[in-house]
């Protein structure tokens, strides 16, 4: 079986691919997030009236960051390798294969969050849609005090 995993790809495992910093979180950000994820229900009052914490899964990097952010959602299935500046594997589509998270301190209005993303591992499997490339990623978020907000792990399935 031809492998999708090149030597260049093996070479970026464990290295920081992207670091980004958020704008300060606002109460409005928290309200809009809660309204969207609770739709069609009304969100709990703690995220609406005078929110002092964000929902655990809140994304402080959506839409804009102070320095140009890598917009993975607009870069297609080879975004990770494109960002790393290495030849991309021959994949066209991507799916979310699994996510994990350990939470630290809560995100609050005014917080500035920094993220550091790296690739932990590549592996392959054969599936219903053909040869599939699995990519494990780790993304550590800290706040302006250096406290860990969350450690995210995720698996990207590409084919």
């Amino acid at each position, binding site marked *: 079986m031809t492998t999708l995993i090149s030597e260049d790809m093996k070479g970026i495992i464990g290295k920081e691919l992207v670091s980004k910093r958020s704008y300060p979180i606002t109460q409005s950000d928290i309200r*809009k997030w809660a309204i969207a994820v609770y739709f069609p229900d009304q969100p709990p009052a703690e995220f609406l009236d005078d929110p002092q914490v964000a929902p655990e*899964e809140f994304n402080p990097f959506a839409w804009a960051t102070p320095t140009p952010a890598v917009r993975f959602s607009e870069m297609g299935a080879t975004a990770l390798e494109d960002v790393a500046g290495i030849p991309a594997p021959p994949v066209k589509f991507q799916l979310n294969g699994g996510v994990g998270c350990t939470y630290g301190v809560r995100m609050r209005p005014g917080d500035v969050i920094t993220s550091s993303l790296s690739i932990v591992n590549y592996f392959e499997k054969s599936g219903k849609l053909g040869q599939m490339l699995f990519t494990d990623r780790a993304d550590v978020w800290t706040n302006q005090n250096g406290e860990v907000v969350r450690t995210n792990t995720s698996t990207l399935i590409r084919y």
Partner: protein
Amino acid sequence: MANLADLAVGQEVAVLVRETGVANWNRYAAVNDEFVPIHMDEAAGRTAGFTGPIGMGNLQWAYYHNMLRGWLNGAGRIEQMNLKFSNPNLSNTVVTLKATVSAIESGADGQTRVTVALTADDDQARRLSSGDAVVSIPSAG
């Protein structure tokens, strides 16, 4: 939330039901800046091998958090969550998420950690995702 002393392994503690489709997904795309064709466009979904657009795994992730926050009702916090996605969330389906207690452990820090098994199934009997979460609840006394 039920009294901590009343919790038992095997007990189903939370359920959340969502009718899913572009009404949910477009709202989520708007706050997460996740305007990906496979989540919005019929043709893009079919090109990728599905019957149409599919839901975001990130939104399903949020639904699990909603369910657990609703169960805890401020009496505890989510410490960890892990999910594996096994089937796509097809449009115009009803998704049922459940949390079932799989372990209860009292910690020396005054917190009881409850592990719950998580599942999400659609109305076509397809398992969309499964995993687990650990929540901490102050121990009684």
